[in-house]
């Protein structure tokens, strides 16, 4: 089986769908000729031609709006917003049309659109290149939001996203674009949207994470194991729909929950998870759940980034607190 990093896995998925379905178009700023600033779409224009894979003017709102038009007219566009922080000019189109065209027209017009979005910090970049606003996006009714953490998952999820009849935000954790490789089948396969994955079974604590934080989580779980703590690690993978069932099952087993993600704490994904766990598994909890996140502050520039991005040591600390809490 070939070994691919996240970039290669995403490319593999796009390659497959471009070959498999004539209706699929791939476009964005610098996505055609150059293959994207992260080289994710590299080689695709050469293989499939400019009609299928192309560069757009520097205009996020029309990238999103035209994507909507194409989807409504029967195509399957896969558009790229170059960096997470640049989705903001396209928010109007996303919220007022992409997310609600199906409901507005009672299903007469649907939007099978995929929005690829490199997101997340830890790369010592300028303002707005390290955003983590999946909670803001997941709060919009009518959208689906998925975040793979591994190359294997990325390929399977992206194929599912492109084949979905709903608009899907496919958020790519750029910090780990090339950080590690995984065996990824050359052929196509699908991972369903809306399902979390229990990456490692454990008995005492449940740790939920996603995106680039999965690597941090894995490291923290290893550290915890050395201290005698058995942690069950869950990769959320899908922010909306959220896989409540898998989470509840784990919490009912361990009784202790910690949720790890980048970005601000308040009104975030961890808050949503904990609310659901409280609603349906309160009586199994032995201690209050813990959120391990960034702060309710603007993302610091590189010289301050190390405080903002959770590290394995910080996660270990939180896990230990969580474990000791009921004692």
């Amino acid at each position: 089986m070939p070994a691919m990093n996240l970039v290669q896995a995403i490319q593999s998925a796009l390659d497959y769908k471009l070959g498999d379905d004539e209706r699929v178009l791939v476009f964005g700023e610098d996505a055609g000729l150059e293959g994207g600033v992260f080289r994710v779409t590299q080689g695709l224009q050469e293989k499939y031609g400019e009609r299928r894979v192309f560069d757009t003017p520097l205009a996020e709102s029309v990238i999103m709006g035209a994507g909507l038009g194409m989807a409504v007219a029967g195509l399957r566009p896969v558009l790229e917003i170059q960096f997470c922080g640049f989705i903001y000019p396209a928010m109007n189109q996303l919220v007022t049309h992409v997310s609600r065209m199906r409901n507005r027209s009672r299903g007469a017009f649907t939007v099978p659109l995929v929005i690829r979005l490199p997101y997340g910090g830890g790369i010592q970049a300028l303002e707005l290149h390290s955003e983590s606003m999946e909670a803001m996006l997941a709060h919009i009714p009518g959208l689906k939001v998925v975040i793979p953490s591994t190359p294997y998952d990325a390929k399977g999820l992206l194929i599912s996203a492109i084949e979905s009849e709903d608009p899907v935000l496919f958020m790519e954790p750029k910090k780990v674009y090339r950080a590690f490789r995984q065996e990824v089948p050359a052929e196509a396969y699908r991972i369903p949207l809306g399902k979390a994955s229990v990456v490692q079974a454990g008995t005492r604590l449940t740790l939920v994470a996603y995106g680039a934080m999965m690597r941090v989580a894995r490291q923290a779980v290893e550290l915890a194991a050395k201290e005698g703590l058995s942690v069950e690690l869950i990769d959320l993978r899908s922010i909306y729909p959220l896989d409540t069932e898998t989470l509840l099952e784990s919490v009912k087993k361990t009784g202790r929950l910690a949720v790890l993600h980048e970005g601000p704490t308040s009104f975030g994904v961890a808050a949503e998870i904990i609310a659901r766990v409280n609603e349906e598994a309160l009586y199994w909890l032995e201690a209050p759940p813990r959120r391990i996140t960034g702060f309710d502050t603007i993302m610091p520039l590189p010289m301050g980034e190390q405080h903002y991005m959770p590290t394995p040591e910080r996660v270990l600390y939180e896990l230990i607190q969580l474990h000791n809490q009921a004692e």
Partner: protein
Amino acid sequence: MLTSYDPLKGKRLQILDESGRIVNHKHLPEWTDEALAEAYRLMLRARVADEKSLQFQRQKRIHTLPVNKGQEAAAVGSALALEASDWMVQSYRELGAVLQKGGTIRNHLLYFKGSEWGSVHPGLPRLLPLSVPIGSQITHAAGIGHAIRYQGGSEVVICYFGDGGTSQGDFHEGLNWAAVFKCPVIFFCTNNQYAISLNRRHQTASATLAQKAVAYGMPGIQVDGNDLLAVHAATRAAAEHARSGQGPVLIEAYTYRMGPHTTADDPSLYRPKEEEEEWAPRDPLIRLRLHLESRELWDSAREDECRAAAIAETDAAMREVDELHETSLDEIFAHQYSDRPAELRRQQAAYEAYLQWKEAR
């Protein structure tokens, strides 16, 4: 034609003047007498439906809605220039165009009563719903046009928006995209001189809106928006241009919003009565009627008959809508996604439990 009326030189296409006389024979559409009378009839239907809608709103049978009065020629004339397979992307003040496309007065009323079903036009897969965020639909039209070109189709897209819409970023982005990719789109700007209370001269420093086309590398033409024939001729030319693969065109239909912005607006606060009186004789229905009468294709008996029929039609539609039931709870959940995620089912069930409790009390 598209290059003969250079907006930068202050040219404006007119075929029928205010008294119904043909002043431009070169671009006269080749219509039968029947077709011309039909066009007038449609405009009258739209006018009546619009007037009655205002009444219905005052009767609280529907909620606040925009008023179309004065823009019938712009809407109907342009729509008549299209094929059935062409796409129509509307803003919210093109009742005449929607009716020409095959939309119904019933749906119009249903939408403004507050049901999503008002946007669902059976058998009309190429008529998009109303677009509330100003100008945002311009980018959709670019995308649809892009898809048509990609698929090698011969359809065109007409995209309606107002003078206010030309100030939005999406106007710029949409026209730019369409021109770069040669999308077959007719960008139809209905310049009715007002964006709610803001007069056109304060909306942009450009002398005309049509000339903005120059910046995007596409043809732009200004037409007399109260002249059905000029509107039609220009739209026809634009459609041919787009269909032949030459890319998009910007048309500015110079007209006047004879009524308020919506039923909740009071124009006396921002425009003088003199101005309204000045525009009254330019009413698109008046000039076309004068023309038809001059050719003995119309008379007051037919006028009365047509008007009565339109009133009856509109009344019947309102009565039908009055009878329709409220949106059901299930409907609220049913159309968010192609499937129904577990959380939505849970929320719906929780709410139903509340309803049962309420019922039992």
